[in-house]
């Protein structure tokens, strides 16, 4: 056990300040007074007007961090007055970023969607009629039932943005028996995932910043990312204690500006920089030999890469130094632009702090570049070399710090493979190839009967949005589109049903994230429902959350149960049984029962904690909103395994205990196809013998950290089996930098917005509503772009017109614009929110043009603030002009763009976007040709041990 004050053990630490040493002040109302809390009215002050609140905890639904919030529900007005942080939450510890308190705006947004709507007239025509939830459920349920009865199960697809919950909806799809999950992963994190997973099986890092001595970020975790607020707290704490923070980013993020070293490497050269650091660690002798010997598959590495050497540990250093011979600091300076001296200095810093190196890459270079997955792989190489894997102050695997309880909703096996999401061209993709969906529809690989977009806005967020528009406008491709969304979006415009779902304080969800060295669960709940309950209203099994929310805004949990009931009302499809109450068979399960079961049966320590508080586990969670699960977070792979528990296993020649019936012993025989049960993570092998001891190890095929990935080699990519630099599709040496070619970074985030979820917050949009093109003054002069002048950015598909913003905070040769802005609406008085421009869209054949007919301005609404809008800029929708560029291995959209940067031309207006979708189809074909399709070994579609949502049966992996 550590004495770290960051990992919170049960009831061991409090985030409440002691008033006696703090000017008589505490930070949060004491928990025992949450049900009846009195504050003074801020506006009436200095007169003392009391306001009485019930404090009801929930979870923020803006970014993925899932920080705790407390809703202050006014007992007189029955409305939420404000949101503050939840001091009971182990990750956010009572604190929030700007987006937390801004939840109030989302609740009170005067233009939010309050009732279920059904399209009238043409799709995309903007005409809607209000319908009842009953009608929506009946009509959509009947469609799905018909599709399932007709065995068109692949035509039902649920496409989710950031879920903000763990596994509920996957269970629903499993209950329906369909492989219908589609995600946003490949516009977000595919590359980072495969980089991490190819080392340790876990596909996400969990960095213990709080205890680190060196923090190495290829990300902007002080302002964005997973998990901004919890991470920023701990990074800054560590820096205050003396840790060195290093940030690699071609533009000066806020994180870069706080870092002790900002390294603006050329985009896509980050792996080169990292390998140069690795080489220096090796040369300097500042690497953890013993750790490498015990925990990497160095034998395989030597056998596969250096047959000329003896397979003994002493050969490893030589082999690595040989392999990385060209990665000298001087060469790295040339390739990356980071001075050799600084690289040497940083290698010394890293080398001086073994086991205390916390690193992180999530999007950034990973999401930008072809081969960007090697960023995470090369970065984690430094963790491996310094022995900072799962250590206090190091980086762990997410699976060890994330807690995903078993859910009581029934499941059925999925026995087929949906090629619309998991095409054979991308056997290693992490995960679904969602960006290619419109192209698959174009190619008639299939069609969609019922397509759910859930808080997901592909028309705006994905590359090549006009192709999405074309697909959604064509009823022969998408027969019915149901948008589950709290707000209007560019995608909801093209729906047949728009079903309003709640924001952070209006829905049930359970989430856990690997924010730090510790485990927790956070409970999101509809606070008005809870308020009603506390005020004495009985919440029966027939009541629904939309009765308590604004208008008829609902939540997905109940929606899915009720919809499943409509799909299979009498149980003949075998679906209903998965949604039935345990205590009252034949009745739908209620959310209270669902979460009550999880909290009382599936969360270690929760029942005891609840009993100590004299509450049921469900009440306990409704009152606290989060729970820290007792855990010992460090070096879990070193845990000793009881030999008795591996008695049924075979110990192979590498010391791995292989369990019968798992992927670890899969041999491609018909029996193994039939008998293999797939583990969610890894190949099901439970242990590995190290130096005579049986250890838990890593969820990889070797049970060790894979310096050499046999999977990558066997599935067609032997040249990338070890940490390697893959030159990016935007590598600077390939560009005409003397001319007008530049690299565009279109993805960066800012601390106050979150993709398209935050346009309905006035306070956030007031702070940030503009995203000019960052350009170095030297480049601006060279390209003859005047101060504040319009720039035309020409991509492969077309162009967009944006304003220039000169800054010393970007590498010459690179230009950048934040991805947040550029939101638009079609309706004049619909979805204006606080940052959406009015768009005109013209279409002629495959040519599309979006122009901005009106920016933001004051308007009259229920909220007097809408008449005080003082800004006009809303940005430019740049993603429309980007082709799909999926990495051939991970499937990641390689976001960085090779563009021409020129002064705007005659007739160009700010916000113009022009695209030819014929060109997008050509780009799609070209990138598709880079793949090395399945089948892999044993005729499989995908390695059995690779994670994926809704893992089907082994049989479904057979590519026949």
């Amino acid at each position, binding site marked *: 056990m550590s004495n770290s004050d960051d990992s919170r053990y049960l009831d061991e630490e409090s985030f409440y300040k002691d008033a006696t040493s*703090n000017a*008589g002040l505490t930070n949060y109302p004491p928990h025992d007074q949450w049900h009846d809390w009195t504050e003074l009215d801020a506006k009436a002050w200095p007169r003392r007007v009391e306001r009485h609140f019930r404090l009801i905890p929930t979870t923020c639904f803006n970014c993925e961090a899932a920080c705790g919030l407390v809703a202050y529900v006014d007992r007189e007005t029955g409305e939420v007055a404000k949101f503050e942080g939840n001091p009971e939450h182990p990750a956010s510890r009572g604190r929030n970023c700007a987006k937390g308190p801004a939840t109030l705006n989302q609740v009170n947004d005067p233009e939010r969607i309050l009732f279920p709507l059904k399209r009238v007239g043409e799709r995309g025509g903007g005409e809607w009629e209000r319908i009842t939830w009953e009608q929506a459920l009946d009509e959509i349920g009947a469609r799905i039932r018909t599709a399932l009865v007709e065995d068109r199960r692949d035509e039902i697809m649920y496409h989710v943005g950031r879920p903000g919950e763990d596994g509920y909806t996957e269970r629903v799809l499993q209950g329906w028996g369909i492989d219908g999950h589609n995600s946003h992963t490949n516009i977000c994190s595919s590359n980072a995932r495969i980089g991490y997973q190819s080392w340790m099986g876990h596909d996400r890092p969990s960095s213990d910043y709080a205890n680190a001595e060196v923090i190495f970020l290829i990300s902007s975790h002080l302002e964005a990312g997973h998990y901004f607020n919890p991470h920023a*707290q701990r990074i800054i704490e560590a820096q205050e204690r003396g840790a060195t923070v290093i940030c690699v980013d071609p533009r*000066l993020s806020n994180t870069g500006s706080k870092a002790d070293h900002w390294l603006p490497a050329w985009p896509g050269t980050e792996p080169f920089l990292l390998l140069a650091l690795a080489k220096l660690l090796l040369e300097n002798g500042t690497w953890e030999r013993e750790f490498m010997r015990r925990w990497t598959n160095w034998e395989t590495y030597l056998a596969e890469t250096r047959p000329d050497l003896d397979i003994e540990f002493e050969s490893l250093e030589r082999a690595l130094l040989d392999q990385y011979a060209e990665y000298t600091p001087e060469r790295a300076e040339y390739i990356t632009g980071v001075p050799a001296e600084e690289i040497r200095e940083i290698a010394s810093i890293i080398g001086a702090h073994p086991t205390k190196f916390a690193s992180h890459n999530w999007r950034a270079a990973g999401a930008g570049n072809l081969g960007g997955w090697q960023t995470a792989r090369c970065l984690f190489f430094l963790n491996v070399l310094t022995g900072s894997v799962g250590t206090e102050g190091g980086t762990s695997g997410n699976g060890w710090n994330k807690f995903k309880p078993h859910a009581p909703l029934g499941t059925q096996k999925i026995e087929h493979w949906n090629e619309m999401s998991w095409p054979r061209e991308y056997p290693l993709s992490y995960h679904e190839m969602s960006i290619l969906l419109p192209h698959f529809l174009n190619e008639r690989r299939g069609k969609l009967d019922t397509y759910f977009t859930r808080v997901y806005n592909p028309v705006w967020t994905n590359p090549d949005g006009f192709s999405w528009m074309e697909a959604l406008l064509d009823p022969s491709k998408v027969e019915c589109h149901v948008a589950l969304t709290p707000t209007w979006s560019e995608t909801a415009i093209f729906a047949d049903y728009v079903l309003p779902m709640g924001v952070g304080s209006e829905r049930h969800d359970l989430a856990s994230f690997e924010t730090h060295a510790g485990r927790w669960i956070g409970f999101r709940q509809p606070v008005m429902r809870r308020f009603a309950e506390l005020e004495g209203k009985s919440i029966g099994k027939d009541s629904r959350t939309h009765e308590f929310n604004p208008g008829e805004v609902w939540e997905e949990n109940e929606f899915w149960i009720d919809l499943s009931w409509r799909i299979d009302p009498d149980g003949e499809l075998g679906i209903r049984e998965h949604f039935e109450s345990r205590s009252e068979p034949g009745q739908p399960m209620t959310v209270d029962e669902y979460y009550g079961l999880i909290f009382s049966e599936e969360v270690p320590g929760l029942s005891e904690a609840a009993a100590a508080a004299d509450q049921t586990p469900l009440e306990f969670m409704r009152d606290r909103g989060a729970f820290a699960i007792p855990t010992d977070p460090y070096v879990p792979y070193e845990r000793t395994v009881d030999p008795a528990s591996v008695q049924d296993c075979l110990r192979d020649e590498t010391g791995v205990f292989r369990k019968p019936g798992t992927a670890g012993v899969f041999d491609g025989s018909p029996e193994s196809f039939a008998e293999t049960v797939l583990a969610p993570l890894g190949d099901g092998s439970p242990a590995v013998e190290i130096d005579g001891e049986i250890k838990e190890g890593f969820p990889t095929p070797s049970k060790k950290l894979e310096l050499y990935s046999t999977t990558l080699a066997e599935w067609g990519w032997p040249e990338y089996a070890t940490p390697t630099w893959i030159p990016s599709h935007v590598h600077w040496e390939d560009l005409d930098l003397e001319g007008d070619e530049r690299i565009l970074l279109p993805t960066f985030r800012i601390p106050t917005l979150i993709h398209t979820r935050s346009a309905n917050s006035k*306070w956030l949009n007031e702070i940030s509503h503009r995203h000019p093109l960052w350009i170095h003054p030297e480049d601006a002069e060279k390209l003859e772009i005047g101060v504040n002048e319009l720039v035309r950015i020409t991509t492969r598909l077309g162009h967009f017109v944006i304003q220039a913003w000169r800054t010393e905070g970007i590498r010459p040769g690179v230009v950048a614009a934040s991805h947040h802005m550029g939101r638009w609406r079609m309706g004049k008085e619909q979805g204006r929110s606080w940052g959406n421009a009015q768009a005109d869209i013209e279409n002629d054949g495959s040519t599309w043009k979006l122009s901005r007919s009106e920016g933001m301005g004051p308007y009259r609404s229920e909220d007097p603030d809408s008449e005080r809008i003082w800004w006009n800029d809303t940005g430019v929708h740049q993603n429309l002009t980007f082709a799909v560029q999926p990495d051939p291995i991970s499937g990641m959209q390689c976001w960085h763009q090779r563009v021409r940067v020129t002064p705007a031309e005659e007739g160009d207006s700010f916000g113009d976007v022009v695209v030819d979708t014929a060109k997008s189809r050509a780009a799609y074909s070209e990138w598709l040709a880079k793949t090395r399709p399945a089948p892999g070994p044993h005729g499989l579609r995908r390695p059995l041990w690779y994670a994926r949502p809704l893992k089907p049966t082994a049989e479904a992996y057979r590519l026949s």
Partner: protein
Amino acid sequence: MTRLGFLLDSETCIGCHACTVACKSEHDVPLGVNRTWVKYIETGEFPDTTRHFSVMRCNQCEDAPCMEICPTSALFRASNGVVDFDDNNCIGCKGCMNACPYDAIYINPETNTANKCNFCNHRIEVGLEPSCVVVCPTHSIKVIDFDDADNDARRIVDREDLPVRSPEQGTVPKVFYRGANEASLDPLLTAIPDDGLIWADVTLQHPTPPTREPDLVGRTTYTTAHATAWKTKVSGYLVTKAVAAGIMLLAALMVLLGEADQITTVGFVPAAIAVFFVSVTGALLVADLKKPSRFLLVLTQGNWSSWLVRGAYILGLYAILLGGWLLAALLESPQMLKILALPIAVVAASTAGYTAFLFAQCEGRDLWQSQLLLPTLLVQAVAAGGSGWFIADLFVDMPELQVVRGITIAALVANGLLVVLEISGDHSRHVALAVHSMTQGDQRTLFLTGMVGGLVLPVILLAISMIVDSQALPLSCVAGVLILGGMWAYEDSYVQAGQSVPLS
């Protein structure tokens, strides 16, 4: 209760704006105004570029100019040392906005009253930290308890000798900055670039130095707008008040010169003109209030340290004396005029001059702190009085025209010399920027109009008319009109330029 302040830690601040939003939520702060905000500046050249964050807000000054100028004590010192406010007492005069050297006060468009950070005193009262402190992800906002030697934040302040904003203003701020770049705290060292802010539109209300050079060390890349408090009504009031005061100075002079018998032109006419202009002055003052219906609070619960209150009483006293003067005219009593001449001259001069003390209370506006302002206002009053005299002469024969011409010329010349002295002195950077704004920047046209149209041309015209001394040519009257128009132009340039220098 203990005395409180803030420690704002730029060392750990990540520029996330959570404090801004938590504050908006706690106080329901409307769009367009802020009690607290995060300023970004950028310094250095690639790759040695840095962005610096600093939180801006009320400094809870020990010697708070906003409280001193507040005519109704709507801004008051709470028992914990915090400068708090009471919406119910605010008349919306906006004096506090100009008194504050930190851009911390704004008019709430919902209530039309002055609001600012009050340390969340309604939370302090129930034992809770301010909402910005609670929300901050990196604990970069800390409460200092100056009366507790063990208070963590206080110990940091004591140990590290931390800076405050604009210490030269002598306001003794109780908000300290740790790790802030000097240029973050000095709004004159960075400017908003022509291509704008990093994430937000720029309006004319966004604070930036009126000239870029010299001495800039970086770029302001994020900040918030701050409305100009005093505009044309205030410059107008300066002129109308000058006429009201100056005409009676001349009338009193006439009595001294033995013209007390001229009951109509020395007794009735100047007083009538003065009454009219005092009324217009009062009307402008009330109209400039955001809460005009509350103007009587200035008298019923006046704050005696405020020159707005003292000025109101001076204007009131002046009105009473004018009533006496008119009564004397009605009673056709030269004797009474003689008795009133000295008092009315003194009060008229006070009427003209008190604004110098009011402007001096505007600690945020260094241009207005000049010792030359009082003599300037006095000579302007004389010139304005002369103008009134000449214009009145169109309708009735005013006495001693040549004398008045001479005096007016002298006043204009003196005014000109004072302006030259004002703009050519050895200035602080703040004043230099204001002067630049006035003479070369946005106010240049108004300023030149004031100088040429309001000083040079009238002097020439009056000199000619002195020589010619003919009733046929209404040159003096033309000069009078020019003087008043020019004076307004100058005052407006002065009022605007004074407020053009960024404070945050």
